[in-house]
């Protein structure tokens, strides 16, 4: 039996749980825990420059590995600075454990220095939260937090620890809890067999089926099963923004992303389908466009671990609640057992139609211009070539994010890291850092814009301290591109506050932090400079690339329309 203080228990538990890195920032309420960390050898703490970045680093790690990222923030402003990152993880169902310091328990509620009701503030954006009432509870509470964060539909869990819970003079027995039981929490272990069989029969009989998969396939580790089923039945596949990499992006059966900025082919295939197999996707408003006009002839099979996602916006004809990997595996074995395949001629005529939509110009055709100005799309295509399609790509939010989703063809799951649900500018860079820290050998790119990068640019300092040589690909168009695009399309080009005036010299800024900066203004320099940057394995390189300000992201669905209603360029629409 071992006697530890509450603070020591926190650190010791993290070690026993197998946590390698935690991301945080110290403060008064956490000093006992930081003192315990000082002696710890196996758990490494990464000191960020702003707590929001700590949450995004943990989040990037979680998206790349499927395991909970761990954040340590102090009470009051430390906790509130973490809120945006917690909300980001919540919207995208990312496992995360946030340990927040709290004022001593006898001062809670007294408006003490650096006191915030963290449980109250975070309540709508967490999967669950705990406040520690006695130091001896710490191991079990933390185990529950990890279990809840990582199981079922994953999400962030907050553990609020008042300072006195870590008192070094009070020692209690410590045992690592291998398992916890929660009588009120039991995520589905498998889907309903009868429903799964019905779904397979519908797919086999379908004339125009589409497989539409989302982030649930990535976090549910079901990409292999999804690919097997799709290839077995020769199904056209489209992924949501969160689901990219769930099916190989360079495969013939892949139609590209769907939705607001989805491909013409994917959106048309969805609209004309008769059976939609939705897996680990939630019919988000950025996917379905006008719900009343959504896919008028389609029967919908919806597989999700979260019953509340089913029939929320679009009614499912065959709802299946269960883990996507096991449901897909069961579907595969039922297909094998039935031994039938979809009728060849029917499949062929559906594919013929899809190929007509796809045409010869690729899924996302764009005007490459005369080469006098760099197109943002070209940057992503070049990045794809230079990194051989094998980089981890973390993105910020805006036009560059959509270009990164459209033109980088993700062959594997967990490689595309972006804030889909909340759309958090400032997410990309720290998320890339979290990935690089845990995959030091891999190429990690942060695709960003001059707006987003400035929301967490201070983390260049953290990168210097911990040697995190990510490559920042800044699509600098001198404007808040997506805002500007909407202002072009809906507000007669009145650019209200969408300029970025007084931009810093990013090259000098990167150099000031001790990194390498490169400015690219000519198309001919694009590829060589990108190659040079990625060849500098042990240096952070900030690539500031001047791109066409007037470029828009297309296709763009027309609001409240059907899936097929899209602008295809500034002048053409469907």
């Amino acid at each position, binding site marked *: 039996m071992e006697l530890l203080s509450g603070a020591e228990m926190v650190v010791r538990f993290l070690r026993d749980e197998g946590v390698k890195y935690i991301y945080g920032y110290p403060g008064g309420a956490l000093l006992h825990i930081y003192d315990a960390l000082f002696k710890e050898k196996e758990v490494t703490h990464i000191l960020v420059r702003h707590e929001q970045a700590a949450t995004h680093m943990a989040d990037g790690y979680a998206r790349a590995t499927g395991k909970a990222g761990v954040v340590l923030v102090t009470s009051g402003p430390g906790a509130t600075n973490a809120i945006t990152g917690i909300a980001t993880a919540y919207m995208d169902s990312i496992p995360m454990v946030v340990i927040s310091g709290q004022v001593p328990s006898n001062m809670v509620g007294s408006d003490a220095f650096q006191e915030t009701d963290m449980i*109250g503030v975070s*309540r709508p954006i967490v999967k*669950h939260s705990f406040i520690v009432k006695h130091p001896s509870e710490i191991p079990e509470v933390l185990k529950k937090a990890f279990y809840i964060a990582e199981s079922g539909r994953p999400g962030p869990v907050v553990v609020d620890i008042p300072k006195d819970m870590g008192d070094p003079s009070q020692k209690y027995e410590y045992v690592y809890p291998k398992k916890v039981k*929660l*009588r*009120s929490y039991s995520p589905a272990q498998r889907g309903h067999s009868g429903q799964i069989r019905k779904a397979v029969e519908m797919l086999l009989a379908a004339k125009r089926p589409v497989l539409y998969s989302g982030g649930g396939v990535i976090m549910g580790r079901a990409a292999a099963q999804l690919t097997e089923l799709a290839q077995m039945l020769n199904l056209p596949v489209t992924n949501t923004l969160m689901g990219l990499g769930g099916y190989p992006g360079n495969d013939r059966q892949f139609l590209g992303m769907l939705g607001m900025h989805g491909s013409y082919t994917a959106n048309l295939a969805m609209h004309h389908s008769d059976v939609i197999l939705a897996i680990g996707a939630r019919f988000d408003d950025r996917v379905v466009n006008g719900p009343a006009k959504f896919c008028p002839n389609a029967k919908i099979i919806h597989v999700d671990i*979260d*019953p509340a996602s089913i*029939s929320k916006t679009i*009614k499912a004809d065959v709802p299946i609640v269960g883990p996507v990997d096991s449901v897909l595996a069961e579907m595969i074995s039922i297909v094998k057992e039935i031994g039938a395949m979809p009728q060849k001629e029917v499949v062929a005529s559906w594919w013929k139609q899809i190929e007509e939509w796809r045409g010869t110009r690729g899924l996302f055709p764009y005007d490459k211009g005369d080469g006098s100005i760099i197109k943002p799309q070209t940057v992503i295509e070049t990045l794809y070539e230079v990194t051989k399609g094998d980089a981890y790509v973390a993105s910020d939010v805006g036009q560059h994010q959509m270009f990164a989703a459209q033109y980088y063809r993700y062959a594997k799951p967990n490689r595309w890291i972006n804030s889909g649900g909340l759309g958090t500018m400032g997410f990309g860079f720290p998320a890339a850092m979290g990935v690089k820290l845990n995959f030091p050998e891999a190429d990690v790119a942060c695709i960003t814009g001059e707006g987003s990068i400035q929301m967490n640019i201070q983390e260049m300092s953290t990168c210097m301290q911990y040697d995190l040589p990510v490559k920042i690909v800044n699509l600098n168009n001198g404007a808040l591109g997506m805002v500007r695009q909407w202002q072009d399309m809906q507000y007669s080009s009145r650019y209200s506050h969408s300029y970025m005036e007084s931009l810093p010299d990013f090259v000098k800024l990167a150099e000031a932090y001790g990194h390498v900066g490169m400015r690219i203004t000519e198309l001919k320099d694009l590829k060589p400079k990108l190659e040079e940057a990625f060849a500098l394995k042990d240096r952070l390189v900030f690539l500031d690339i001047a791109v066409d300000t007037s470029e828009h992201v297309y296709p763009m669905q027309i609001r409240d329309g059907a899936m097929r209603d899209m602008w295809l360029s500034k002048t053409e629409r469907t």
Partner: protein
Amino acid sequence: MRHIISLLLENEPGALSRVVGLFSQRNYNIETLTVAPTEDPTLSRLTLTTIGQDEVIEQITKNLNKLIEVVKLVDLSESAHIERELLLVKVKATGAQRAEIKRTTDIFRGQIVDVTSSVYTIQLTGTSDKLDSFLHAIGTSSILETVRSGVTGIARGDKVLTI
């Protein structure tokens, strides 16, 4: 349609705020709410009434079930059930009114539980509709103060909500 949703909740601090928070967060409507510990002190029984289309009610029950502290849930209005609410009302009672109020109270099987020279305090239990009818019969002009417990209920027959 009006639904009576009853749930077993971990009797822990903060559990109630998650239930209430869910309703405001997702723009659901909550008509009445009542909560108290059960014979098992680790559990509270919470009953709420809400009004909404079937799809909304489905989302409400699904989202309530997702709360970690919700152990079990039943929509009582989906099958035969008993529904009760407690009303305490203070009314002006002087002169001829005193006999009239007493008669009305008897008709509704209420009790006068406190008396002064000018005021009766009446206790009445029943469905919300019955309490509404009683208040209507008494008339708003003589009502000084009302307090209602909110709806609570239980399924008829052998069905029980237990862990």
